[in-house]
């Protein structure tokens, strides 16, 4: 599928994009605008992580906030109680989330399609209630990160710029993991499971094993995103990291951009976060809840007009241009099978 010139052109494109991202804050110096860029990178990182299980392997999770929250709470609790640096805290959060993914995936993957998605919602809801009622985790009050420290050791900064580079680094890491999976036999197995699970089994692919791999890796990376959120906001509570709206946002970013492809979630994040932020400035505090309206509208638009997301739409347009060469690989459609 990837011929030599094609993949080297892709490589060059990626390098150019990365260089652009690295120098972008030099042009965008306004803190609120830098914050906006950070939000886009955070969204992209979530989407790319979700795409591993929801896109490639086709197991639609609507409960990814559970991993996000576990990441945020683990690194924050380790920092507050043991003074452990978030560099290690984020890895610990990833490991806890991965272990949790194994434990929840085992029963949940006995369910297929819609039923799996519903089970993931339930798990995330239960977790939010448990944390809200946990005294050890300060319940609904939430956790504050230390305001009197800053620097690379505690990953707390007074300016936005360091946060920008940290999340850019995390996004690059997430993309690299995703890319490595896509190119290995695991990526092929994921797509086989998504397309025709019974045929995959007949070729020796263990559905449970590979779905668990997908969920575990995705959970690990999502949790690291959660840890970053805590470091950036310096305050977390169950409503801000375990909420179902976060689960939906994570999935929607990938679905909007185009599932099962590396660049889809990045594109989805740019579009979704831009709309979200503009609506926030437009409607102000009176517009709380507008984000849910926007999510709903986008889900409908994607479902009706382009099940393969914006990337799929672009692909269709390119095919219809005069003199265009047809794509050999078709855009993948977002499909949930019962």
């Amino acid at each position, binding site marked *: 599928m990837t011929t030599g010139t094609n993949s080297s052109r892709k490589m060059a494109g990626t390098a150019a994009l990365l260089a652009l991202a690295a120098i972008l804050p030099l042009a965008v110096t306004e803190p609120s605008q830098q914050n906006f860029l950070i939000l886009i990178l955070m969204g992209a990182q979530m989407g790319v992580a979700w795409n591993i299980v929801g896109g490639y392997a086709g197991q639609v999770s609507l409960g990814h906030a559970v991993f996000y929250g576990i990441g945020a709470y683990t690194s924050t609790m380790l920092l507050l109680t043991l003074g452990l640096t978030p560099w290690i805290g984020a890895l610990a959060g990833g490991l806890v989330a991965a272990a949790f993914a194994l434990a929840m995936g085992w029963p949940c993957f006995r369910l297929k399609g819609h039923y799996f998605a519903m089970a993931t919602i339930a798990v995330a809801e239960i977790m939010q209630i448990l944390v809200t009622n946990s005294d050890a985790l300060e319940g609904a009050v939430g956790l504050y990160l230390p305001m009197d420290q800053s620097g690379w050791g505690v990953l707390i900064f007074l300016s936005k710029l360091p946060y920008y580079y940290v999340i850019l680094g995390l996004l690059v890491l997430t993309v690299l993991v995703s890319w490595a999976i896509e190119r290995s036999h695991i990526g092929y197995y994921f*797509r*086989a499971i998504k397309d025709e699970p019974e045929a995959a089994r*007949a070729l020796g692919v263990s559905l449970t094993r590979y779905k668990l791999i997908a969920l575990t890796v995705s959970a690990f990376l999502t949790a690291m995103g959660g840890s970053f959120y805590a470091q950036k906001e310096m305050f977390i509570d169950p409503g801000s990291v375990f909420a179902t709206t976060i689960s939906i946002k994570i999935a929607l970013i990938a679905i909007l951009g185009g599932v099962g492809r590396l660049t889809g979630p990045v594109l989805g994040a740019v579009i979704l976060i831009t709309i979200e932020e503009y609506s926030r400035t437009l409607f102000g505090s009176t517009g709380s809840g507008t984000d849910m309206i926007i999510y709903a509208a986008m889900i409908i638009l994607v479902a009706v007009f382009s099940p393969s997301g914006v990337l799929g739409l672009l692909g269709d347009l390119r095919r219809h241009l005069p003199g265009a060469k047809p794509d050999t690989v078709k855009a993948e459609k977002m499909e949930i099978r019962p």
Partner: protein
Amino acid sequence: MNTAPLLAVDGLGKAFDGLVANRDISFIVHHGEIIGLIGPNGAGKTTLFNCLAGFHTPTTGRIAFEGHDITGSTPEAAAALGIARTFQIVRVFQSMTALENVMVGAMLRNKRVAEARERAEDELAFVGLSHRADTPASDLTVSEQKRLEVARALATEPKLILLDEVMAGLNPTEVREASALVHRIHQRGIASIIVEHVMEGIMPIAHRMLVLDYGAKIADGTPAEIAENPAVIAAYLGE
């Protein structure tokens, strides 16, 4: 040297709730043999396939593969042991190219992508689909998709391949090609069990025929013997 037959099925039965789809079926397949499995619609041929390939757990009886009991094993375990299958209604991986489909099969024995690709290219050539390697599987004709499933199954390096109606819907030329393909699979030392309604495709190449009716085996013999068997004639034409 392993003296056990490749496949030994003994008293196999499968019931779905009250409905008995297979009853007391026993037969043996030797290494490299071509077995035709025929019978009227609803005779239980596909159910038998599903039991052999690990998709159904038999209600009664035993299945031994190279002397090992594999009754009720999973499809992935059966594939790992060397039992490959195709599906009556094709199940190619739609989002992949033809080559990638076959690579997934080759990855059972070799997880390295580049080596799986080489192996897959060989198998595509074997079934005559090299020119379609980079075509999305969903764009192939049904006849090509059936051959793609054969290539994908062969890429798992099976000792036994279960072919479910690979000749259905083919024109006479294609049927001859399909028969030749089965014969070449035999020449590679791979045994095959072929469910087929297309008699002119299966009769000339099968070493032995099994006939099912109402879930039970009613005949087992060479194609010539089967053609003269009164029970078989009765099953097909009515008494």
